[in-house]
């Protein structure tokens, strides 16, 4: 890809981010914060300290893993927006299975099994919307979202009763001891989830770019009718894209349990899908471009969390500007129009 092409592709997202950040500044001004100081603090807490950078790199793992799935789904024209629920199911499965295998398996196998459990859990959670969409054309946006709420209650039940390691206290699964969590990448304090995330998006990128399945995914995303006439098995593509996106979301859940939390805790719902949806759109559903953007979004979310802990601007501010980025990216795409791919509707 030529440099000029990259610059042109990056213009939209950069404009969208700038507009969102400026509007966010105006909002800050209205609610009584100094926007320059707030952004300075956000920046210095999220990017200016060792802790901020390490935490941001750790946060990249779930964002990248979920991005991989959403890129595949959105490319195929499927709107799986229930990533939060799939994440929770993957996380609760990993947290629930961990104590059974912790002392029986060698570590690398332990991680692999838990990761698979998370992936399968997330994929299983999305089978209902996938089948309803493929067989009966029932809108997957509604169904995946309803499944989100069901997942919240189901995991709340599981962690309160069958998987609760400490009845009477705050409900959570058995804590995985530190030495049995995901190891760090050598010379850093960032666990290897980041590498899993990078592999996941690169996998998604090349799956879409060079495989036959990827061709079918792109084809059905761009024009369902044309794909149908060309003999693409749309139902198969829908189901595979859905299962992969759900699976990756579940894997992200397992990743956070194995790498950060060490257990599934009640009332834990990080809502990454709300960040990942803007994130993958800003990357133009490109598995490589998503990497630097994921770092940017991780820094925003970590900086935002640190900032709210210092009892200043509430953490929701980050969600507001991420949503604005999504909206203004949509606007900038429309303005430059006729540039590249369609999202399929």
């Amino acid at each position, binding site marked *: 890809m030529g440099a000029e092409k990259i610059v042109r592709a990056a213009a939209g997202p950069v404009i969208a981010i700038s507009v969102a950040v400026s509007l966010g500044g105006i*909002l800050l001004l209205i*609610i*009584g914060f100094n926007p320059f100081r707030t952004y300075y603090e956000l920046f210095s807490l999220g990017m200016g300290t060792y802790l901020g950078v390490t935490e941001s790199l750790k946060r990249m793992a779930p964002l990248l893993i979920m991005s991989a799935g959403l890129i595949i789904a959105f490319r195929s024209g499927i*709107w799986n*927006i229930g990533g939060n629920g799939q994440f929770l199911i993957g996380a609760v499965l990993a947290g629930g299975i961990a104590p059974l295998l912790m002392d029986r398996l060698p570590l690398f196998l332990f991680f692999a099994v838990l990761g698979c459990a998370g992936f399968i859990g997330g994929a299983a959670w999305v089978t*209902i919307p996938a089948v*309803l969409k493929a067989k*009966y*054309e*029932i*809108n997957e*946006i*509604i*169904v995946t*979202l*309803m*499944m*989100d*709420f*069901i997942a919240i*209650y*189901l995991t*709340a*039940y599981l962690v*309160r*009763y069958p998987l609760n390691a400490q009845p009477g206290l705050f409900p959570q699964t058995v804590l995985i001891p530190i030495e049995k969590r995901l190891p760090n990448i050598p010379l850093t304090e960032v666990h290897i989830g980041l590498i899993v995330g990078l592999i996941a998006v690169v996998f998604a990128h090349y799956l879409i770019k060079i495989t036959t399945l990827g061709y079918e995914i792109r084809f059905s995303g761009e024009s369902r009718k044309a794909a149908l006439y060309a003999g693409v098995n749309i139902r198969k593509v829908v189901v595979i894209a859905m299962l992969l996106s759900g699976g990756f979301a579940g894997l992200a859940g397992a990743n956070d349990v194995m790498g950060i939390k060490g257990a599934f805790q009640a009332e834990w719902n990080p809502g990454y899908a*709300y960040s990942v*949806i*803007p994130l993958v*759109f800003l990357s133009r559903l490109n598995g490589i471009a998503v990497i630097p953007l994921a770092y940017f979004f991780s820094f925003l979310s970590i900086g935002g969390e640190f900032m709210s802990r210092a009892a200043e601007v*509430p953490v*929701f*501010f*980050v*969600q*507001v500007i*991420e*949503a*604005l980025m*999504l*909206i203004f*990216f*949509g*606007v900038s*795409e*429309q*303005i430059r129009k006729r540039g590249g791919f369609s*999202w399929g*509707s």
Partner: protein
Amino acid sequence: MGILRLLFSEPFFVVLLGGTLTASTPIILAAAGEDFVESGGVLNLGLEGMLLLGSFCAFIAALLTENIYLGLLAGMAAGVIVGLVFGYLVISLKVNQIVAGLGIEIFVVGLTSLLHRVLFGNTFPVVSEITSKTAVPFFSSLPYVSSIFNQHLVTYISWALLPIAWWVLYRTNFGLNVRAVGENPAAADAHGVNVYRTRYIALIFEGVLAGLGGAFLSICDLAFFVFHMTQGRGFIAIAIVMLAKRNPANLFYWAFLFGICHSLTFGLQILGLDVPREFILMLPYVAVIVLLCFLARNTRLPGAFCTPYERE
């Protein structure tokens, strides 16, 4: 059997029916608005945001003025603003409707939580001493059905609205225009229907109704605002429009059914049924999926559904 007897015992039945009607009100309002918008060929996933901003603004206005009607008005105004912003994005700028809708939903969830936290910290103030409950004389003292006649003003309005909405959509010129614009905007345009204006009006109408529905939630049904208090009701309303096949006359049953599930979540807990409360709480969402699964297969959508109109 004991449970059933308890379920249909007079006091419990009254509470359950009252709760059902109250819970279905915001859904009826939001779904009626979405019905028009979807008939006009636009899918508004920002409906959840409309409801939520309506809830928030109504709550703030009611807290400041201690007047419920000003609160309801503020809710409607908020809904209209969301409708206009969404309309500008998808009708004028022709942004992908799903992207714009999701963007608005995420934005409003974040914004209302942010503002509530900035204004009130971790406290949740209550608007008290104001109520819009209207008891119909005589009827509200009948056994079993008394709660039908002891509802909030907004609930009565929502019931009156449905036949009117049906009449407007299927028996007036405006309704015909809306449906024409949804089915074949180019043909409608050729016949002198202003596609953009018709879609904007549908969205404004939806804003009024969804804003009112949101306001109902925070200042009539409850008396406070909590983060993301709409809990997916906007999406449930969209699902109900699908179930009703975009006919306002059918909206009531499905909204009522949702209301039953919702009020059962409280009812069954009061009954002390030996089921973990999480399973009861997921009931409305499970019901929506099951119903869609049986009744919304291969639903016919308006011809120009979800596509912006480009004038030649």
